[in-house]
């Protein structure tokens, strides 16, 4: 089968799976809502643009407000199914934001995981391998225990995002010498910086006093109390970055041959490495800053998909991203449907690790 056909078939199937997972998930909760009602509610929300005008408005991104020309779009809703108001409110305002955010976060982490594993040619590489999560954790914990210490009126998510980006950039600078960034140095610098930031986070935890519970909760990764704002921010950042990655899947394949080979096959190795690292790090940072540290999604989803569809990034990247979205929505549903709500990070780790070990024993994941 041609790669493009194979990619299309797998992606379509995984899109279908994601849709089913979302419909089912939105029905599960203290109030049980049938999947058909969820579907109707979602169809009702579809708006078709009919008119367009632009006025100057404001746009708030990660806590920073910038003036922006705001387009105003007149819309028509083509569907008008009869759905009970309470159900519609629960689905649209409470459950869907959380589900969509979960999907976006899972999508980003899995995509970034694929890129990092390919980039580092290392099976243990995860999206945070160059310290993105540790940096986000420092920013977030600082925002929780000492909000007054943050400059520019940064909110928790802004602080986490900034911490993540600064860390990734710092690790990159540390590992770069004479214009070259050897992958092994980058990996080791990442490990060292993660350890250092972990110590810093632990120290702040000790002195977090009454906010301890909130800090621990954030560190474990969660998706509760999600509003459409967070979803919009994440959804604005992730798709363009993902598009860049998709355009570089062939380069990722060739990079697996090693840098010398990749160069002889016409890849601008240094530039491509820098770009892939930056894009994957920003995607991870965007995901981590809205959801906390959710482990294992970016590690195991790419491994599982590699076993299913093979190592070709042209198919591995989109399928992993879609599967990551389904995986996180499903695990978050489990996390919130128990008697006491769990941070989703606990569920992903508790489900993902044994499954991964099973694969490790049964299949040759270690061959990577």
């Amino acid at each position, binding site marked *: 089968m041609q790669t493009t056909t194979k990619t299309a078939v797998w992606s379509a199937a995984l899109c279908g799976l994601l849709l089913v997972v979302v419909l089912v998930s939105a029905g599960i909760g203290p109030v049980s809502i049938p999947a058909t009602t969820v579907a109707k509610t979602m169809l009702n929300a579809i708006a078709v643009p009919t008119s367009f005008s632009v006025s100057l408005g404001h746009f708030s991104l990660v806590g920073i407000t910038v003036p922006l020309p705001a387009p105003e779009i007149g819309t028509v809703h083509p569907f008008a199914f009869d759905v009970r108001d309470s159900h519609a409110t629960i689905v649209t305002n409470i459950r869907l934001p959380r589900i969509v955010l979960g999907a976006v976060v899972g999508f980003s982490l899995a995509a970034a995981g694929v890129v990092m594993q390919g980039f580092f040619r290392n099976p243990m590489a995860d999206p945070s391998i160059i310290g993105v999560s540790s940096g986000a954790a420092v920013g977030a914990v600082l925002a929780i225990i000492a909000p007054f210490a943050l400059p520019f009126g940064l909110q928790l998510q802004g602080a986490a995002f900034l911490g993540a980006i600064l860390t990734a950039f710092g690790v990159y600078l540390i590992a770069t010498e004479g214009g070259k960034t050897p992958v092994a140095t980058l990996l080791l610098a990442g490990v060292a910086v993660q350890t250092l930031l972990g110590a810093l986070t632990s120290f702040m935890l000790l002195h977090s006093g009454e906010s301890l519970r909130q800090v621990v909760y954030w560190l474990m990764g969660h998706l509760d109390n999600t509003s459409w704002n967070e979803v919009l921010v994440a959804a604005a950042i992730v798709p363009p970055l993902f598009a860049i990655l998709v355009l570089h899947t062939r380069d990722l*394949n060739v990079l697996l041959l090693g840098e*010398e080979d990749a*160069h002889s096959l*016409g890849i601008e190795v240094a530039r491509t490495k820098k770009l892939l690292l930056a894009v994957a790090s920003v995607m991870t940072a965007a995901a981590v800053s809205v959801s906390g540290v959710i482990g294992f999604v970016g590690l195991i989803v790419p491994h599982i998909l590699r076993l299913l569809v093979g*190592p070709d990034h042209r198919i591995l990247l989109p399928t992993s991203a879609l599967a990551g979205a389904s995986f996180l929505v499903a695990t978050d549903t489990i996390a919130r449907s128990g008697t006491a709500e769990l941070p989703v990070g606990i569920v992903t780790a508790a489900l993902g690790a044994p499954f991964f070990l099973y694969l490790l024993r049964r299949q040759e994941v270690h061959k990577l």
Partner: protein
Amino acid sequence: MTEAVLDIDDVAVSLGDVRVLDGVSAAVDRGTFVGLVGPNGAGKTTLLRTLNAALRPDEGTVRVTGQNVAELSAKEVGRLVATVPQDTSLSFDFSVRQTVEMGRTPYLSRFGGMRPEDHELVDRAMKQTAVDEFADRAITAISGGERQRVLLARALAQDTPLVLLDEPTASLDINHQVRTLELVRELVDDGKTVVAAIHDLNLAAHYCDELLLLGEGRILASGPPESVLTESTLERAFGANAVVSRHPVTGSVYVTALPDQRTHGEADGRVHVVGGGGSAARHLYLLSAAGYDVSVGALNEGDSDTETARQLGLDTVTVNPFAPVDAAARKTVTEYVERADVTLVVDIEIGEGNLANLEAARAADELVLVETRPFAERNYAGESAARTYETLRSRATVVTPDEVLGAVTAAIERARTPTPAQHDY
């Protein structure tokens, strides 16, 4: 006039503070197979990496079909120069076809996939290298020799005027070494231009049109194999004690490296060897490796002991093939025997033709005889030969083939110790 595909002009390259290449110039014409030979650390790989623009020369230029590769983008270089690495680090389960398709990377747009002409070139490259039989197998599941052919197919799919190979046979068994180089040879005969770093001088001599001998970052010699692989250039480049001859079967230049006598053997002394028919070869080699000055003869031209002696660079007394040892040869042998500290007689068959050698050995100060069977069994020269042998045997050290070196050493010591003065009290 043929067109130069590759033009290396006064290239100097430093790695860190070390100047690895200095003043390297060479030109390679279309349709030639150039072997890059030289000792480890001579800069072969560095030169290849400069040719495919992985390294930028500090000075000088590398031009491929007239274009300076240092000024081109990686993609543009990828359309001019294809490189076949020693092996691939590809540990993911890409199929053979997917791996060969990667050769088309420099031609593909970021936004488009493989076009029909790309598929055509990939198919042709796989057919040429006979990897199409296992096109769908994983690259990790095939043998090293097959993988080398896949990498060659990838380079062909790259459709470049110049192909570089970095030690293409280094990790292959002897059968796959030959098959790989036969394949490269065919490609060159079809018009490809190939530069290959090859460790094995004899493979290089056999398959390449021209050789570039690198040593200490410079080109020590270039041209057809027989002009490059001479004993003096090999001595200069490798510091090796090598003998250059023609291979008896292929007729190619053939290099045999010998143990370095100056460093290996400390032994001092002259030994003359009487042998023939290959019986002396091993002793010649061991004695010469131990450091002794060895002479041998008289032997017939074409005798395998004669070949061995020549390869070892020994003084050899010869007579024509199948001719008996004549008076002149006998005189020369006697001179060698007299000059030698020890004469070694191997257990050869003695006939009228070589009886003269045995008689000449009587002039020896010290004698060592190798015996594995009684002389009577190998005597075809009658009573006088038996008498001569008995004379020799009466004052010789008689040994088995394994004891030769020790016996010779002991005999030389005896020969060199002055006989104690006899005192009569």
